[in-house]
C-alpha cells in the first residue's frame, strides 16, 4: 500500500473548505488536519464531519507525521512566512495562490470529469443514482427522474426509501431499507422491484445496489441502479401464459403427446400419456421410449424414429404396453424438432389409442358387408332377417326385430289386440298393423306374442306412428315406456333402441328395435339410425321389386298369349339395331328363344332368307328415317329348316334423349295366310276356268236354240199361225236373256279376280266416253246428259269406272219416264273421298227398295218392261266396292233419284293395301276415333308413349 500523502490545510474558509472537500475524496490523500483561528469557520465544521482533526493553531500540526503538503488557504502572507519557517524540511508549502491554481485546475478537471460522468449518467436509460451509505440521495439521473416524473430537488438529500420511487409500496420500502443496511455493510444486493411510473403504470425494475468503497474498504457511497424490465417481464408473463396454455392444451388432449430427444428420452409429455400408459410423471421422466413397446415391435419403433429424423416425419402403428402389461393398439405420428441453427434436437408426436376406432372400424366393416349382402337376390323377408342378424352381431344386442306396416290380417282370426276395447292400447286402425317379419338373437320366432302390434299402441306401435320417432333408453328397468320391467331385469337387459323405418319423404313402413345388455353409446345409436335407413330402403326396394315383378309377369303373360311375337325394337342414331323386349312367341316362329335373340340381334338376321335380307333392311331404314309405320313381308328359315312367311309391322313410340328411336310391333306368321292366298288364287283360277267353261258351254246351246228357232220362223213362217210365231219369238227372247245373264255373271265374278291397274284418270274423259257410247239411246230418248261443275282426276280402274258410269247413266235414261230425261253428273270433294253422283228426273224409287236394287238380278219393273238383266247396279256396286268406296241412292217417288258413290282419295286405300290400323279396326280391337286420335298425335310430333 502506498503511503498516503499527508496534507495540512491552514485556513478553513471557503477556499479551505473546498480544499478539504476536494482532498477528502481522494484516496491517496490523507488530510491530516485543518487549522483555523476561527473554529466556526465552515471548513472546521466540515473537517469535523469528515473526522479530520482540527485546530485553531496550525503550529500544532505543522510537524505532524507523514505530512507532505501544507496548503495555506488563508491568503495571509504572515502565515505563509511563518509556515515556511517552521515547517519540516521535506514538506512543501503551497500558498493560496498556488493552492487556488491547483484547486482551479483540479476543479476544472473534476468539472470535466463530472460533465462526462454526468453525460453518461444522464444519457443512460437505466436508472442510476448515488447515495450516501446511510441512504440519502446524492444524485439521481435524468431517466430515473423522468420515470417517476419528479424533480431532482424533491429527492436530493432525502432517504432513498422516502422518495416517490418507493412510497407506493411499504413492502418495497422496507426491503430497500434492509438492502441499504446490507449494502452499507459491503454487500451487493439485487432484487426485482416494482415502481409506479409517472403515468401510473406499474413497472418492474431490476434493482441493484452497489457499494463504493474507499481504499480502506469503507463504504463511502452506494450506487443504486435500476433496469426497467417491465417489457421483458410482460414478455415473460406472456410466454408463461402461453406455456401454460400450451401445457393445458396438451394435457387436454385425449391422445398422448410427447417430445423425445435423440436418445429416446422424454423431454415433454402430457397427462394422457401418463394415464394411458399408467405411469407417473416421475416414471416417464426417466423412461426410454422403447420401454413402451413390446420387444417384437421395438424394431418397428426405431425404424420409425429413424425415418422421422431422415424424412422429417413418420407414422407408426404399434401396440403400446401399459404398466399393467395391457396392449393398446396405437397410431403414432411424429415430426422432428430443430433448433434455430437447424440441428435436429428431437422428435415431437402424437399417439392415438386405436382400440375404440378399431372396434368402430370392425363395426362399419360388418355393416358394409351386410349392406353388400342385401344387394344379392333374395326375398324381402330374407333380407330383413340379414339386417336383424347383423344388428345382433355388430352391436352385440340381445335380440333385434323388424316389423313391417301392412293391413291387419288377423283381426278376425284371433288377434289378441282386436279384442281390447278399453285402455291406452286399443287397436284403432285395422288397415295399419305391424307385422313381425324378422327376429334375431335370443328370440328368432316371429309368430309369438309380438307377431302383431297395433299401430300407435305400445312401444313399438308408438314408434311406428311417430309418437316417439326414434327412441333410446339406457335404463330399461326404469323407463316408463318399457312395459315389462321385471322381465327386462331378469334378462339383464339394460338398453333399448327403436327406430321408425320410412322412405326419405314418406310415411312409416316399419320399425326396427333391439334390446341389449350393455349401454348403447351415442355413436352406436347413430350407426343404428343408419342401419334403419338401410332397412327402410331395402323394404322400399323390396316392395317396388315385387310390384315390378308382378307387372313383368303380367306383361309376359299377355304377350305370350298373343299370336306371333310382340317386340320393342330400338335403333341407335348410328343405326345399330336390337330388340329391347321380345315375347316368347318368337320361339314358335323361328324356333329360337327370345333370350338368345335379345342377347344377340344378329341371330334374328341369320334366320331371314338371304334374298329377302336386302329389302327387309331397306324397308326398316326407310321407316326409321321417316318415322313412318313399318310393315314388311319377308321369309325366314326356322330352326327346323321350315320356310315361313312373316309379316312384320310396327309403329314408332318414342325417341329418347340420346337419339335412340323405339318401335313397338308384332311379327306374325302369315304362312297360312300366304298359303290361303295361294289357295285362293288357285281356287280363283279354277273358278275362272270353271266359269269360262260353264259359260262357254252354256252359251253354245243358246246360240243354237236361237238360231234354229229363227230358222223355223223364217223357213216355216207360212206354215205357222201367229201363235206359233209368237212362241218362237218367246223362245228367242229367252235365249237372249239367258245370254245376257251369263255375260253379267261372268262379268261380276271376274271383276273380283282380275284387277286392272289403277291409274290416274280424268273422270270427265270417262263421262265423255260413256256419252259417246250411249249416243244412240240418248238421241232416241231425247235425253240430256250434263256435268255439273268440274269432275276431278282420280286414281281408279279406268275401264271399270267407265263401266260403272255407263251403267248408272244408262239406267238414268232407260228407266226415265219423262219426255226429256235429264241426267246430271257431279262430284263433291269430301275429306277422304270423292262423292260422285248421277241424278235423274225419272220416276224415283220407293224407299223400301233402296237396298235391294243393288242386289243382283233384282229388278223393280216387270221383266218385259225393261231390257236390263237387273244386274247392272249389282255390277256397279261391285266396281265401287272394289275401289273401297260406297254406293247408295237417295230418292223419292216422282221426284227423281240421285245415285251417290264414293271413291277414296287415298291411293293406298283405293289399291287396297291395308294398314295395321285398319286391321285393328276391322277386328274391333280399336275404334276408328281412337286410332285417328293416336295417328293424329303421332303426326303432331308429340308421339305419346302409348
Amino acid at each position, binding site marked *: 500500500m502506498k503511503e498516503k500523502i499527508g496534507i495540512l490545510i491552514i485556513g478553513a474558509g471557503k477556499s479551505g473548505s473546498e480544499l478539504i472537500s476536494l482532498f477528502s475524496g481522494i484516496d491517496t490523500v490523507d488530510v491530516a488536519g485543518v487549522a483555523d483561528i476561527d473554529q466556526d469557520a465552515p471548513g472546521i465544521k466540515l473537517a469535523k464531519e469528515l473526522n479530520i482533526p482540527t485546530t485553531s493553531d496550525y503550529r500544532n500540526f505543522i510537524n505532524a507525521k507523514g505530512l507532505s503538503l501544507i496548503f495555506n488557504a488563508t491568503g495571509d502572507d504572515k502565515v505563509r512566512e511563518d509556515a515556511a519557517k517552521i515547517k519540516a524540511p521535506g514538506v512543501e508549502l503551497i500558498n493560496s495562490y498556488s493552492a487556488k491554481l491547483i484547486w482551479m485546475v483540479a476543479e476544472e478537471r473534476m468539472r470535466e470529469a463530472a460533465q462526462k460522468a454526468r453525460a453518461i449518467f444522464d444519457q443512460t436509460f437505466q436508472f442510476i443514482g448515488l447515495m450516501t451509505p446511510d441512504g440519502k440521495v446524492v444524485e439521481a439521473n435524468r431517466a430515473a427522474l423522468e420515470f417517476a416524473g419528479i424533480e431532482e430537488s424533491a429527492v436530493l438529500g432525502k432517504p432513498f426509501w422516502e422518495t416517490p420511487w418507493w412510497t407506493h409500496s411499504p413492502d418495497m420500502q422496507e426491503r430497500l431499507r434492509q438492502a441499504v443496511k446490507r449494502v452499507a455493510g459491503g454487500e451487493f444486493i439485487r432484487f426485482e422491484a416494482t415502481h409506479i411510473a409517472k403515468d401510473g403504470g406499474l413497472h418492474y425494475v431490476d434493482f441493484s445496489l452497489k457499494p463504493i468503497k474507499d481504499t480502506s474498504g469503507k463504504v463511502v457511497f452506494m450506487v443504486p441502479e435500476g433496469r426497467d424490465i417491465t417489457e421483458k417481464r410482460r414478455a415473460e408473463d406472456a410466454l408463461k401464459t402461453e406455456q401454460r396454455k400450451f401445457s393445458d392444451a396438451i394435457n387436454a388432449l385425449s391422445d398422448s403427446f410427447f417430445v423425445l430427444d435423440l436418445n429416446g428420452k422424454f423431454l415433454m409429455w402430457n397427462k394422457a400419456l401418463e394415464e394411458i400408459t399408467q405411469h407417473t410423471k416421475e416414471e416417464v421422466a426417466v423412461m426410454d421410449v422403447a420401454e413402451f413397446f413390446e420387444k417384437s415391435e421395438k424394431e418397428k419403433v426405431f425404424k420409425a424414429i429413424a425415418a422421422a429424423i431422415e424424412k422429417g416425419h413418420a407414422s407408426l402403428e404399434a401396440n403400446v404396453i401399459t404398466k399393467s402389461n395391457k396392449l393398446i393398439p396405437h397410431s403414432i405420428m411424429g415430426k422432428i424438432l430443430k433448433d434455430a441453427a437447424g440441428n435436429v434436437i428431437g422428435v415431437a408426436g402424437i399417439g392415438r389409442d386405436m382400440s375404440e376406432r378399431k372396434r368402430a372400424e370392425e363395426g362399419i366393416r360388418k355393416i358394409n358387408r351386410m349392406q353388400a349382402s342385401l344387394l344379392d337376390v333374395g326375398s324381402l323377408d330374407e333380407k330383413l332377417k340379414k339386417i336383424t342378424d347383423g344388428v345382433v352381431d355388430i352391436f352385440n344386442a340381445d335380440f333385434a326385430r323388424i316389423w313391417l306396416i301392412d293391413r291387419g290380417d288377423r283381426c278376425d282370426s284371433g288377434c289378441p289386440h282386436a279384442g281390447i276395447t278399453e285402455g291406452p292400447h286399443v287397436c284403432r286402425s285395422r288397415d295399419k298393423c305391424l307385422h313381425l317379419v324378422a327376429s334375431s338373437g335370443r328370440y328368432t320366432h316371429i309368430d309369438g306374442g309380438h307377431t302383431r302390434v297395433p299401430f300407435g299402441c305400445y312401444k313399438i306401435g308408438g314408434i311406428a306412428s311417430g309418437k316417439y320417432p326414434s327412441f333410446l333408453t339406457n335404463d330399461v328397468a326404469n323407463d316408463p315406456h318399457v312395459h315389462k320391467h321385471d322381465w327386462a331385469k331378469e334378462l339383464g337387459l339394460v338398453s333399448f333402441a327403436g327406430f321408425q323405418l320410412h322412405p326419405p319423404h314418406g310415411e312409416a313402413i316399419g320399425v326396427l328395435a333391439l334390446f341389449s345388455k350393455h349401454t348403447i353409446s351415442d355413436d352406436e345409436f347413430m350407426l343404428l339410425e343408419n342401419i334403419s335407413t338401410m332397412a327402410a330402403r331395402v323394404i322400399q326396394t323390396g316392395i317396388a321389386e315385387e310390384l315390378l315383378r308382378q307387372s313383368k309377369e303380367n306383361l309376359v303373360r299377355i304377350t305370350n298369349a298373343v299370336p306371333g311375337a310382340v317386340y320393342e325394337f330400338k335403333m341407335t342414331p348410328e343405326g345399330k339395331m336390337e330388340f329391347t323386349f321380345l315375347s316368347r312367341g318368337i320361339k314358335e316362329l323361328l324356333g329360337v328363344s327370345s333370350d338368345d335373340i335379345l342377347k344377340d340381334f344378329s341371330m334374328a338376321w341369320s334366320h331371314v332368307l338371304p334374298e329377302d335380307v336386302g329389302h327387309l333392311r331397306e324397308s326398316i331404314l326407310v321407316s326409321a328415317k321417316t318415322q313412318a309405320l313399318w310393315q314388311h313381308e319377308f321369309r325366314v328359315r326356322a330352326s327346323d329348316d321350315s320356310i315361313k312367311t312373316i309379316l312384320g309391322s310396327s309403329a314408332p313410340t318414342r325417341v329418347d334423349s340420346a337419339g335412340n328411336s323405339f318401335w313397338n310391333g308384332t311379327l306374325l306368321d302369315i304362312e297360312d295366310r300366304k298359303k290361303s292366298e295361294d289357295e285362293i288364287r288357285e281356287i280363283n283360277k279354277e273358278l275362272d276356268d270353271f266359269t269360262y267353261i260353264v259359260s262357254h258351254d252354256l252359251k253354245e246351246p243358246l246360240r*243354237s236354240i236361237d238360231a234354229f228357232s229363227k230358222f223355223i220362223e223364217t223357213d216355216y213362217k207360212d206354215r205357222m199361225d201367229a201363235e206359233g210365231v209368237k212362241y218362237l219369238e218367246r223362245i228367242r227372247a229367252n235365249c237372249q236373256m239367258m245370254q245376257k245373264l251369263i255375260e253379267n255373271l261372268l262379268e261380276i265374278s271376274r271383276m273380283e279376280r282380275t284387277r286392272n291397274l289403277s291409274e290416274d284418270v280424268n273422270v270427265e274423259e270417262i263421262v265423255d266416253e260413256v256419252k259417246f257410247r250411249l249416243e244412240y239411246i240418248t238421241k232416241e230418248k231425247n235425253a240430256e246428259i250434263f256435268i255439273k261443275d268440274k269432275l276431278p282426276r282420280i286414281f281408279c280402274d279406268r275401264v271399270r269406272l267407265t263401266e260403272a258410269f255407263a251403267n248408272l247413266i244408262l239406267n238414268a235414261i232407260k228407266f226415265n219416264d219423262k219426255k226429256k230425261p235429264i241426267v246430271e253428273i257431279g262430284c263433291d270433294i269430301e275429306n277422304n273421298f270423292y262423292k260422285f253422283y248421277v241424278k235423274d228426273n225419272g220416276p224415283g224409287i220407293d224407299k223400301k227398295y233402296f237396298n235391294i236394287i243393288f242386289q243382283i238380278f233384282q229388278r223393280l219393273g216387270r221383266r218385259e218392261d225393261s231390257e236390263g238383266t237387273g244386274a247392272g247396279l249389282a255390277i256397279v256396286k261391285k266396281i265401287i266396292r272394289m275401289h273401297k268406296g260406297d254406293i247408295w241412292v237417295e230418292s223419292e217417288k216422282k221426284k227423281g233419284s240421285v245415285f251417290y258413290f264414293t271413291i277414296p282419295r287415298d291411293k293406298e286405300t283405293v289399291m287396297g293395301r291395308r294398314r295395321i290400323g285398319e286391321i285393328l279396326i276391322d277386328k274391333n280391337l280399336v275404334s276408328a276415333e281412337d286410332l285417328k286420335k293416336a295417328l293424329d298425335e303421332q303426326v303432331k310430333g308429340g308421339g305419346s308413349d302409348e
Partner: protein
Amino acid sequence: MSEIRSMIKILLVEDNLDDVEITRRALKDAKVLNKLWIVRDGEEALDFLYRKNQYKDPDSSPRPGLIMLDINLPKINGLEVLKRIKQNSKLKRIPVVVLTVSKRDEDIIRAYDCNCNSFIQKPVEFEKFVDVIRQIELYWGLLNLNSPNGVERK
C-alpha cells in the same frame, strides 16, 4: 244390201255341228257366195292346210283366202292350230279370224299373241250373227287385200 260377190274361199274350223249349220245359214242369209270348206277339228284343219291324209288331193283342199277358226276345238286346241298356221311360211299369210263365244281377255291376248288377224265374239242372237258374218265378208273378202298367193279370183 245389194249382192256382193266375193269369191275367196273360206275354211271354217268348227266342231259344233249346230254352229256349222248356223254359220252356213248365216252365210246364205248374208248372201255370201263364197265357197265354204268345213273341217271339224284342229287335226283335220292342219291336214287340210298341209294337204295331208284325206286331204292329199289339192282339189279337196284348196288354199283358203280366209280361215274362220273357233278356239274351242277337241284334240288339238284352236290356239295350237293358229300357232302352227302362223308359223308356217306359206300358211301364215292366210288371214285367220278367230270366231269364238268367249271374249275373255286372256283368250284375246293369247290369240293375238299367236298372230291371229282378227278376233270376233260370236253373238248369241242369230240375226246379229248374220250381221257379223256379212261384215266379215265385207272386210276380209272385199276390202282387205290378200297376199297374192293362195287366192283364187275369178
